């Protein structure tokens, strides 16, 4: 499980962006729970990794924030900006390419010759 977490780590920003693309706007805690739910507990985004990633993408202009009052407290929602949407498409392409290549390596017959 720990080794698997390392593999997910490199794709954290792409995962967050994809989730925001699918769900419109999300808040930090919601992202951690959604990832846990989709991966059936296999992937656990820690708070120490999630917020720096969100803040970095916000500073880069890929995410915008929106505030709302929920249950007596202020909630900070993240959503993709226009450049964030474009970036998500490009990062998803890269990720799909990576997965395809890994798949080919793992299942390919020429593995011994690498």
């Amino acid at each position: 499980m720990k080794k698997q977490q390392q593999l997910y780590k490199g794709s954290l920003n792409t995962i967050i962006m994809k989730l925001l693309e699918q769900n419109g706007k999300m808040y930090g805690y919601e992202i951690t729970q959604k990832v846990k739910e989709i991966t059936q507990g296999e992937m656990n985004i820690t708070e120490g990794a999630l917020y720096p990633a969100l803040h970095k993408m916000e500073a880069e202009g890929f995410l915008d924030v929106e505030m709302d009052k929920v249950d007596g407290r202020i909630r900070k929602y993240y959503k993709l900006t226009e450049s964030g949407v474009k970036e998500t498409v490009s990062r998803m392409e890269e990720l799909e390419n990576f997965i395809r290549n890994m798949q080919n390596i793992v299942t390919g017959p020429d593995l011994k010759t690498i």
Partner: protein
Amino acid sequence: MKKLSQEQIDQLFVFTKKHLVEHYDVQVELVDHLANAIEAEWEINPNISFTAALEKEYKNFGVFGFSGLVEQKQATLQNHYWNVIKREIRSFFSIPKIVLTLALFYVLFRFYSNPTELGEQLWFSLEVVLLIMTLALWIYQYRKIKNSHKKYLIQSISNYFYSLPCTLIVFFGFSVKSNPSLFTIVLSSTTTTLYILFVAVLFFKIIPLIKNEIGLTEKKFQHI
């Protein structure tokens, strides 16, 4: 589903402050995160106390707790604005702005090559005035933030950038030397040119950008 009371939410704000989070925008996000986690914990374990659930969730923030998070956010924002500064300064070394840079370098080169007594005194006075001005500006900003009811993280970034012109003067200590070598003249002209470009970019590009960001942040929180 068991929800947090207003008193418990206030306790969470106190908890974040106690753990060195002084910026309201960061506090708000952490309070909501902790509140969600505690409420989720109550779903599974209804008998756990508020304090025990809070301590349990706080452990998930790692050994550095919230301070690591604040430092990372500050570093991210500083890096972002440093990248803008680098990009803007680079533009002064490409056409057409390079003409301005070369002209500035030439004027400074001439000035450092033939220093007169009056020039030396003027240069020193200018440096002292600039030092006092930037220091006064930094103190003004620092006090303004300190006295404001709600502090936002972006304000600490603005304070950092306001302090730079003054720090750089102290660090470089631009001075005019009598009978300078060619190396000294070129070095002084280059560092002064870069300093002037840096200050120009800082005051005409970065500070307005940060001010705009502070305004946007305040507006976002005012609407709630």
